[in-house]
């Protein structure tokens, strides 16, 4: 699966979030990849799950891709919980 990490410019918090997602993917042994992008191109990018902050989550919600909000971009616990919720909902 593909996890899209989104922030305003695509090279700050989204990259930080991508690093955290990659740690969680490795820890859980998931067959998944992470990509960072900016809010402008996020809605046109194919993905299975979008992770971002609260504000962009509310902007991106309602599309075809499930969206989860993360408060701390470096928190493996938060990211793991978001991925688990997504996997459970499938």
């Amino acid at each position, binding site marked *: 699966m593909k996890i899209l990490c989104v922030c305003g410019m695509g090279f700050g*918090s989204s*990259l930080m979030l991508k690093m955290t997602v990659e740690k969680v993917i490795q820890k859980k042994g998931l067959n998944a990849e992470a990509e960072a992008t900016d809010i402008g191109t996020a809605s046109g990018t194919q993905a299975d799950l979008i992770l971002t902050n609260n504000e962009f989550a509310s902007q991106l919600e309602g599309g075809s891709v499930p969206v989860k909000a993360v408060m701390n971009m470096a928190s493996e616990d938060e990211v793991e919980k978001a991925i688990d919720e997504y996997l459970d909902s499938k």
Partner: protein
Amino acid sequence: MSDVKLDKSSIQWKQEVTDWREAIKVSAEPLLQQGKITENYIQAMIDNIDNLGPYILIAPNVALPHARPEAGVNERGIALTVFKKDVEFPPGTDNKTDTARLFICLAATDSETHLNFLKGISSWIEDEEFINRLLETDSQEETEDIINEFYTKN
């Protein structure tokens, strides 16, 4: 991780500022003084927030002001500022107002140094105790001590 080592001149403790624009300027001041960034870079960081919204929070209470290297970075650098009082950002589309007290101003010259910086900053914000202690400091000396202790420990 030596890339992200904060020296004394890049650590600041401040009582309060008038608004978030002032907070960005203050947080960038050490890098400007050291000649690492230009005035234009500071303006670009402010413009980014004006254009994209105030979404530079990377953790509760922690803001990461930054812009693209070509906006005016002469040399890579990072500066950390603790504000005693909340800095309020304009409300987002959800009408919620974000506040922050810890500002990490980032200036990268290329994507590799940028990634190294982000890795270093990640190691700070994943340590909640470290962040909480920084938020509780009451002086410049105390702020420097907590950061030095963090480096000794890690």
